[in-house]
């Protein structure tokens, strides 16, 4: 996978910077981007499953022990014959870089942290491209992650074990179901035979709805 530049506009948004950044910040963005690209080793993994059952108690996948419970995932996968389980990570090197920067230069640490968040989304987008290639006839739903809406974050451990994520890309969850390395994503994507129109997820299902800075400015975090 070759991603040789990071979406700085997205990183600026995470940093809460509105409008054109000052020259100092621009310069730091460039420096940090180089360092992050050198330290990160982005990897992803996905598996496509037939949906065997889409009943109220959860989604069952063909030949897979994982059950995806909740109303929201049911809605997402409505009309989908297949679902993709995917995960992605920037690897421990990105964490280590940010950790070290927090000792030597906090401003760089904050900027690199934002760049890393943008970067992992780019890795996910790239993975989606690969998924599209493997399933030409289908259109893809949004990415939906454990912890969104009523899809329990407690799924994380089993989700990763289905994908053999530790063995294949070095990705694990903590006891509290936080992903490690930190800059990582797990997500479910539905594959539908009909063309689907992209929908904004509602803010109602979001944990951050009361403190969200984007919302105050009437913008969405989703693209």
């Amino acid at each position, binding site marked *: 996978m070759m991603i040789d530049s990071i979406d700085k506009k997205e990183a600026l948004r995470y940093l809460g910077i509105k409008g054109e950044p000052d020259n100092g910040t621009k310069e730091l963005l460039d420096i940090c981007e180089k360092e992050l690209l050198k330290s990160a080793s982005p990897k992803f993994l996905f598996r496509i499953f037939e949906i065997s059952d889409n009943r109220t108690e959860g989604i069952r996948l063909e030949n897979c022990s994982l059950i995806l419970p909740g109303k929201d995932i049911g809605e997402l996968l409505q009309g989908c014959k297949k679902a993709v389980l995917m995960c992605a990570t920037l690897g421990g090197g990105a964490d280590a870089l940010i950790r070290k920067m927090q000792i030597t230069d906090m401003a760089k640490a904050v900027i690199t942290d934002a760049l890393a968040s943008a970067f992992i989304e780019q890795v996910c987008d790239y993975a989606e491209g690969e998924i599209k290639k493997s399933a030409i006839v289908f259109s893809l739903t949004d990415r939906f992650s454990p912890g969104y809406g009523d899809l329990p974050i407690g799924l994380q451990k089993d989700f990763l074990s289905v994908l053999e994520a530790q063995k294949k890309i070095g990705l694990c969850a903590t006891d509290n179901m936080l992903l490690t*390395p930190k800059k990582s994503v797990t997500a479910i994507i539905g594959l539908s035979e009909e063309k689907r129109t992209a929908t904004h997820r509602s803010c109602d299902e979001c944990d951050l709805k009361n403190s969200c800075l984007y919302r105050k400015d009437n913008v969405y975090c989703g693209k």
Partner: protein
Amino acid sequence: MENKLNLKELTRDRFIIFDGGMGTELQARGLKTGETPELLNFTAPDVIKSVHLDYLKSGSDVISANTFGANRYKLEGCGKSVEEVILAGVQIAKTAAAESGRNAFVAQDIGPVGQLLEPTGTLTFEEAYDIFKEQVVAGVKAGSDLFIIETMTDLYELKAALLAVKENSDLPVICSMTYEENQRTFTGVPVEAEAILCEALGADAVGINCSLGPKELMPVVEKLCNATTLPVIVMPNAGLPDPETGRFTITAEEFAIYTEQMIQYGVSIFGGCCGTTPGFIRAVAEKLEGKKPVARSVKKQSYVCSSTRVCCVDQPRIIGERINPTGKKLFKEALKNDDINYILNQAIEQVNAGADILDVNVGLPEIDEKAMMVKVVKSIQSVTDTPLQIDSTNPEVIEAALRIYNGKAIVNSVNGEEESLEKILPIVKKYGAAVVGLTLDNNGIPKKAEERVAIAKRIIDRAEAIGIAREDIYIDCLTLTASAEQEAVKETLKAVRMVKEQYGVKTVLGVSNISFGLPNRELLNHIFLSLALENGLDLPIINPNIEAMTGTVRAFKLLHNIDVNSAQYIATYSDTATQKPVQKAENITLEYAIDNGLKEAAVNVTRQLLCENEAMDIVNDRLIPALDKTGTLFEQGKIFLPQLILSAGVAQSCFDVIKESLSKSGDTPVSKGKIVIATVKGDIHDIGKNIVRVLLENYGYTIIDLGKDVPPEAVVDAAEKHGATLVGLSALMTTTLKSMEDTIKLVKAKLPECKVMVGGAVLTADYAEKIGADYYAKDAKEAVDIAKKVIG
């Protein structure tokens, strides 16, 4: 085969063949994705046995029991205990071995826990050790013949597992790690580090398995064979999986051909991993038929390492001396305040200046040296991969540090005294460290070189007698101060030459002591350093931040043709001539420097200001108003987080200058009061908390930063110990708000006077109030406002 397995002896004359993949065989027999394979030991023992039997029939000398994931984390909630699963797995394998009629051995298979260890994950080394210990104890009871720890990607986890085996059984143990195409594991471990650690801790064989096919693994295999004297095991996958189907791509015959090619490097134990089947093992067995392992001649070297960096003492290597409180007021202050960041800064600064190894000494009468050493070693290893030298005279401290050290460390030091040798050498041996031997004993430091050499001989003999290799013994002939004992200087140099020539050991010297009590110390230090290097010094302990010292080592390496083509020298110095002139400080005000993120200029201005002003006046009249101004701009949305922090960083370096100057003049460093901050238990996202720390420090508060994933009790203990009147807690995830609430409750119960402020992405003012916090800070600037309100 004999009944007691001695891998080293056995592999002198013959190959040993392991089995191939278990997981893929089970999936072929109907195991669903995501199911726990170890439960088949109960639900389908015959299936497991049939896999074993197929491998045994194909020629496996050793089969791995179906226990790869049989640890308490992976089995949680499955209804079976670790002991039950291992017992069942080993028994099935033993039954299969007996039925096969072959004299085969059963290896208990130990895979990774399934969670990442600190610092990337939250699992501590000690917890990982306990998890593995439970497996080992169960395996011994179940009658395993040997252990195979495999598919490891983190050297730290491998160490925990290997130590658990060594401390809880006498059985042979094989270790194997998994490498990517960049020839490192996911966590960045090079194969040499695996070899060094396994040899140090007494593994019986070392190797490589999984992730790639035999062809792709060839270069890593070659490197491993050149780096270890232990038998080498290789268990590749059946090629690379097809990206479309996930199926493995090479045939049994191709697999066996590559295997055969590995013989030349000295591999003596073969097997297969994912995608390999009994057919693969049969093909390997046929290829090996009638052949014998190739003996390797491996050059013995003096190695130290961290998990991701190996340092070979085959040329002068710099040991940084700065992490040591002796004679340093600020360092002592940092230790008393648990200010790990101060120490980490010292570590990184030395590494950037050119240190190859860092000496770590945290001995101070007022503190718990053992606990501090463990904390400091772990913390340093989380921000730099430079290997460490554990510097203490207390055997308990040394042992605690070596145990949790990730890699192979140096112990500084033993000396010729009986008590020192008796207590410390066994610890060095157990953890496979290198050791510095000081040439002194009960009678002090001998005057004559010959006498020091005699003590060195005694230390070498004693170390070798308990199995420490000659290449892991480094002798320190001791530098005496030239001002007091001028005639001793050449004795030290002579002794260095003698121990090197007579015993072939590496040599260490603390260099800076030479100039104590004399003017222009730098001059004496670097001249003495070059004399010592010329006399055979390998490991100068110096302050690498002083350019003349590090430069002397670089120049020495160039002039001795060690730095071939002067490459390192040129890389270091070619830029110096073209460097931009430093901005003239006189044109710049402190306020301008802070606004514009000009660290160097700000430091210079502060130094000038200190000549004419009181330190506290600079803080109150200049620094804080400047910071207030950036804070206000931030609040107004005129500048953003990076600029705010940049200014804070500049102010920070001004504070450092002021503190340094105060400590030199004997005044106590400035502090407006103590604040304990922590990211709550269960949460690992701590960058927000760290931003708050920087800003609070800027305003002159002393911050006791407990880090991330901090239990409520630790917060209370720290607040009590340091008499903090304000506690700051952060949490990023909804899932960890509960532990924030628990922490507040405990603080309020134990320390009712103490105020609590909280912050974090998912928090709101309402929620903060609901869980009992006194204050909610929406950002770092607000945290400062709250601190002003509470403390003043």
